[in-house]
């Protein structure tokens, strides 16, 4: 062993030298206490876990978890709401896979299709055909569409900002906090908070790329955003309904987060 190594060994040991020591009798007493504390901790963890699983279910998950999701929503809407996702060059866009057909399985006559716009008291504000949406200011966005399952793809959407659409009804509905969307058959429905809906990247999409949406992707009109999971991007919009309370949400009723914000 070289001089250098010995010095090192000494240095290493010196690190331990100031560690307190106690007599073995005292150690035995503390040891017993530590193990009892450990056993109690195990018991508390076990009971806590069972307690959590046994809590009443809200939307398919135990209430404390649902409340935590809502707490998270509060945190994130306060920390950094309103930020925008990056947009990409058109060349990066790829076709998007078809993931869900809930609400779009029925036959549809695209020529006869209209959207019902309802106020917060259920009153019919408007019934619009596709020309109305074509007449709104058009924009393109190439964004990363993110599915809650974990895949994502860069999609080129074309259409109108929801905020431009909303401008038509802002006076009529006032400061409503929510807006809901439904497929014509009512089988699929999503709820949005108004500030997410008013985000400049929340789009009522009419086109994928330069082509009108095809049926599988929500023709003639769907929601698109990079800032919420795809579950919120309802296809084939049949009803747009302003609301004072959180609108029902298909996936939030099935254990998912209502906000689903990114």
């Amino acid at each position, binding site marked *: *062993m*070289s*001089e250098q*190594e*010995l010095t*090192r*060994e*000494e*240095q*290493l*040991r*010196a*690190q*331990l*030298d100031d*560690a*307190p*020591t*106690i*007599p*073995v009798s*005292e*150690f035995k007493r*503390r*040891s017993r206490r*530590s*193990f009892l504390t*450990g056993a109690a901790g195990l018991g508390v*963890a076990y009971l806590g876990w069972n307690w959590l699983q046994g809590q009443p279910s809200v939307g*398919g*998950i135990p209430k*404390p*978890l*649902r409340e*935590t*999701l809502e707490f*998270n929503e509060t945190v*994130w809407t306060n*920390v*950094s*709401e309103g*930020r*925008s*996702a*990056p947009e990409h060059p058109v060349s990066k866009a790829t076709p998007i896979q078809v993931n869900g057909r809930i609400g779009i399985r029925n036959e549809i006559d695209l020529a006869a299709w209209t959207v019902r716009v309802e106020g917060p008291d259920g009153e019919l504000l408007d019934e619009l055909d596709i020309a109305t949406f074509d007449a709104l200011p058009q924009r393109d966005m190439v964004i*990363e569409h*993110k*599915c*809650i*399952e*974990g*895949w*994502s793809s860069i999609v080129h959407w074309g259409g109108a900002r929801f905020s431009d659409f909303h401008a038509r009804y802002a006076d009529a509905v006032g400061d409503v906090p929510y807006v809901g969307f439904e497929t014509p058959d009512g089988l699929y429905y999503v709820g949005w908070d108004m500030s997410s809906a008013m985000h400049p990247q929340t789009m009522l999409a009419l086109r994928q790329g330069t082509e009108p949406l095809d049926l599988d992707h929500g023709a003639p009109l769907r929601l698109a955003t990079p800032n919420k999971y795809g579950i919120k991007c309802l296809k084939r919009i049949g009803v747009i309904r302003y609301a004072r309370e959180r609108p029902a949400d298909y*996936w939030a009723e*099935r*254990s*998912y*987060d209502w906000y689903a*914000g*990114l």
Partner: protein
Amino acid sequence: MSEPTGYGGLAHRGDGRGACDRMRNAEERSRNSELIASTHGIDGPTVAVMSIDTTAEAVASEERPPGEPVARLVHPRAIRWLHWINFPLLMIMIWSGLRIYWAEDVYALGIGSWQWFAFFPDAVYETLDLERRLARGMAFHFAFGWLFVINGAIYGIYLLATKEWRHILPDRHAAREAKDVVLHDLHIKKDMPPQGKYNAAQRISYTAVMVMALIIVVSGFAIYKPTQLYPLPLLFGGYQGARLVHFWMTIGLGLFFLVHVLQVIRSGWGNFRSMVTGYVIDRRSPHVTISVAGVPEAETHTTEMATEESKGGGA
């Protein structure tokens, strides 16, 4: 040799050469020295050891009868609590994370289109009840994730505040020594390199775990809020990159956990107990202890002479 010789997952015993235990190392050294001394017809080492004895009596006897075992604190209370709280939290995070991963289980080991191992075989999903639980997985993940992060943050702050990190971060000798530790563990090499609270392999492993934990948290946030935390995902090459990194860090932590548990079992009861009670029984005897702090120049020199002898003969 019933006492533990290491303090954590990659601790060592077996042949009783735990370097944390001063007595045993010193004994070993003096035995080596004597062996070599006799080969070479030198009786210097014996003298040296005697002289160490004297020093040790003076410096390290700590008002207790020589040779009486004492319990020495190795894991402060905060470390023990944080360690044991982290364990179930990490398990919940991995379990709920796998339920999320199941929904898009695209990762595999292989080259090109050839897959050697796809994560994960159906049997794994079935056994652990991971199928069709994406929503519940997310609910648990995003609730317990806070606790995991808070616990980890407290741990990090504690290490910094108490300078406990000095026991854990590898130094410049660590790579070479860790290799020796592994060889020792594989029963290829007899001697363990010198160590402080943790051996070099432990230092590297524990540091790697902390780095992986940091990466897993940061990449997790990048997946969780890619817009709101933009440009965080760019650190990982984007959203999917963050997901991939997050996945591999999970595998890394899982592998660490396996090795950790195996090594804890190997190290034995005393080592496990030290993470519960905080203490190890230290049987070091002042008679053979090489004192470290405050050793007068002359004695240190004598010690070095002794070891020089052993080196000279043992090479």
